């Protein structure tokens, strides 16, 4: 159960090596020991995440999870719920797919769509069903500002996130009254492994800052979180700008 002050007993991270995801887990562990399930592909990074969390969690389990392999996800999620209720499930897997590569290669673009959108939707449906049965729980879906404001350097990524973003908002509505909440996190640029090779853009934040905002929004039972908060206003202003001007923005 998530308690009255937003402290959960168990957290499932889908995309077990996601830096933002792990920062959220850490943020919860700063408060109290919780049970953690990391779902991801077996890797050294996953092992080191397990090793690091084990000291602070009541228990850390791993589950084989491959975002590309849709058919295996039902089983992976069943395993994730086998040790008891999941209070917070974080959908954190995703690929950035630096353009222009996907622009010139439909296969790469399709891969992005599979991981960022199709798998996220597949997982969301399975999670919703499991949590409905529990009568409580929160699904945190890591979307992106790019879902609302695709730039021409990342519009394919943005398109996949837009699909995911719309799906999870709809899911939130469909779960009204079920005890299950959905939080869609529209993060601006975050300094992570995935973006380390890119220059810092304005308003770049850290995984820790995103995690702090997420845990607060989970407690407030919000549906959409913009982080940093100013992103929301910027996205809104940009929507009013003429397209011709926008094209100049990289």
């Amino acid at each position: 159960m998530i308690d009255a002050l937003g402290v959960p007993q168990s957290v499932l991270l889908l995309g077990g090596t996601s830096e933002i995801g792990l920062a959220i887990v850490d943020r919860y562990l700063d408060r109290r020991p919780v049970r953690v399930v990391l779902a991801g592909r077996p890797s050294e990074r996953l092992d080191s995440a397990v090793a690091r969390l084990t000291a602070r969690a009541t228990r850390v389990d791993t589950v084989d999870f491959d975002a590309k392999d849709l058919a295996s996800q039902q089983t992976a999620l069943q395993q994730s719920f086998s040790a008891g209720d999941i209070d917070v499930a974080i959908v954190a897997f995703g690929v950035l797919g630096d353009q222009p590569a996907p622009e010139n290669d439909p296969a790469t673009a399709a891969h992005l769509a599979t991981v960022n959108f199709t798998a996220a939707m597949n997982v969301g449906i399975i999670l919703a069903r499991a949590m409905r049965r529990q009568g409580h729980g929160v699904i945190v879906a890591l979307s992106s500002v790019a879902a609302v404001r695709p730039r021409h350097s990342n519009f394919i990524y943005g398109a996949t996130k837009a699909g995911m973003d719309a799906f999870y908002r709809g899911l939130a509505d469909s779960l009204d009254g079920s005890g299950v909440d959905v939080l869609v996190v529209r993060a601006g640029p975050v300094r992570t492994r995935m973006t380390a090779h890119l220059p810092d853009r304005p308003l770049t934040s850290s995984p820790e800052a995103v995690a702090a905002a997420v845990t607060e929004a989970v407690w407030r039972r919000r549906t959409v979180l913009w982080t940093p908060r100013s992103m929301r206003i910027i996205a809104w202003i940009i929507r009013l700008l003429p397209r011709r001007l926008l094209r100049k923005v990289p």
Partner: protein
Amino acid sequence: MTESRMLTGWGRTAPSAARVITGADDEALIAAVLGAGPRGLLARGSGRAYGDVAQNAGGVIVDMTRRARIVSWDARQGVVTVESGVTLDRLLRTVVPAGWCLPVIPGTGHVTVGGAIAADVHGKNHGSQGGFGAHVLAFDLLTGNGSVRTATPGSEVFQATVGGMGLTGVVLRATLRLIPVTTAWVRVTRQRAGRLDSVLAGLMTADHAVAWLDLSRTGARTGRGVLTLGSPAEPDELPPGTDPLAYAAVRSSPALAVPVSPLFRPQVIGAANSVIYRRAPSVPRSVARPMADYFFPLDRVIAWNRAYGRGGFVQYQFVLPHDAAETLHRVITMLASADRGVSLAVLKRLGPGGSGLLSFPTAGWTLAADLPACTALADRLDRLDRLVAGAGGRVYLAKDARLRPDVLTAMYPKLARFRAVRRALDPAGIFTSDLARRLSL
């Protein structure tokens, strides 16, 4: 009737969904217990417990409030048998005019007899009368295999159910012992006390005693307060022409239409506290008041809990042994500096504990502090849990919504026995709650 509903406790935090069965007779309840799915079943009374103790996420909740008949009533002996969904207020309306009263009355008349047994509730007179369970002569308990057992004091089933938070089964009916009264009025004496120590001393001076505390001051004035002492009023003290035994229920005004949670800021609370304190008499002053006004001051406003807005509030109620006065000072100081302040703080004295294995009361001081919920409160209350447990105290589960699970065994030394009785009574684990899951009870 069954419907899916979102439920919370009185603090309106941590909602969860359950299938709610209302108004069922014994047969339907037995069928519900036998047909309970993997998420189990739990009885719920008026939902006056503050936290998640009357919630069962994904499972079945049986709403007992429609089962509110008075089954039999012996006005000569002062013994009454009721269905467990009857509220204490309703019961008082029946018995007081005949010259009888409940020996133990909590701070609201809306609680049901089932809820009062399940939490072994205490009144302002715990030192002389003990908990609610001490006056229960017998009850019928619907257990996990669908059978109904009658439990009497001294039996393990009785001890596990009194204070057992609904986790042993559903109390269907209970027989209660009453005490005689000559009037339906209470002589209420109020006086302010400038320091915590004088509040504590004042609480020792009467059978019925409670203190409102001002937790907005710092330094020596932290914990100054207003004492309210009560004793039965004699007929000659009542306003002329009053029928001495007429029970007047609290006249309540409707719910606040708008949440005033923005007002719950330390500065505003501080100003309000000063007014309350200054308006209280500096020397003892007594008046006769209708008993409901005295016992249920908060019932004057319907649904006052909504004033806290969407975030809700938590009540932190703990008891510390009398010799832990220093810890009491520390805890009060730490509460007083909570980020969003303490909107209400009430201090009482408790006598020795009763037979309930999970009952809250033990001899000492009990403070109940209402705190507007915010995530920053989590760490602060976790630290207080440690202090309270370390000094031999405990937190009241009927109020709890966020306890650190690892201090539970220290706070409730009879927990192992409770678990054993519960396992024997309900091997399939039918009866469960959000609190039970959260604390791995």
